[in-house]
């Protein structure tokens, strides 16, 4: 196996780990947000906005990982 192939494989694994971390974070946010909505349905709108904001911030980090991996794979 040559070195670039190795680098690609590692990059893909890294992207997978990064995305796994992001998905754990988003899962926790979703669960907590649903909990909060179930407890206080009147605050649904605020909770949803903040949920999307938090999820988006985490998603951004996951994307960093995915894009760095993409750069490695296709370069």
């Amino acid at each position, binding site marked *: 196996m040559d070195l670039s192939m190795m680098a690609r494989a590692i990059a893909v694994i890294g992207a997978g780990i990064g995305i796994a971390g992001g998905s754990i974070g988003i899962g926790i946010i979703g669960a907590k947000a649903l909990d909060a909505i179930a407890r206080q349905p009147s605050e649904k709108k605020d909770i949803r906005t903040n949920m999307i904001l938090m999820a988006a911030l985490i998603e951004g980090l996951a994307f960093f990982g995915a894009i760095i991996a993409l*750069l490695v794979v*296709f370069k």
Partner: protein
Amino acid sequence: MDLFTLDPGLVIWTWISFGILFFILWKFVFPPLMENLKNREKTIAKSIDDAAAIERRLEEIEAERGELLKKTNSEADEMLLQTRSDAEELKKRLLEKAEKEAEEVLVQARRKAEAEREALLRALQDDLADFVCDASEKVIGSVFITEKEREFTRELVKEL
């Protein structure tokens, strides 16, 4: 791999098209749109208020009508009752009057009958006295009975 290549032309195109879009929407689309929304909101609020007012007025009218109807009904009932009692009274009075009249008629008739009988009796007595006088004249034989005797006979017959 041109996934991350810089393309300044595309950036400028984006800015220009976004700018044009923003300008057109901001200048020509938004004023009428927001105005429409506001106007429609106002119109809808007004019509809902109007509808509520109309409904309230209708309810009032309905209540008024019901009250009026009730009042009229009770009045009619009262009137009917009054009329019935009046009629009954009238009937009673009429009946009484009729009875009284009938009694009166009866009394009068009785009195009349008695008077007649008396008159008849008197006439009969007179006739009988005359007859007795005549008969005794005939029996005695052409003896003229004086007026005094005649009167006496009459008294006798009356005592009979």
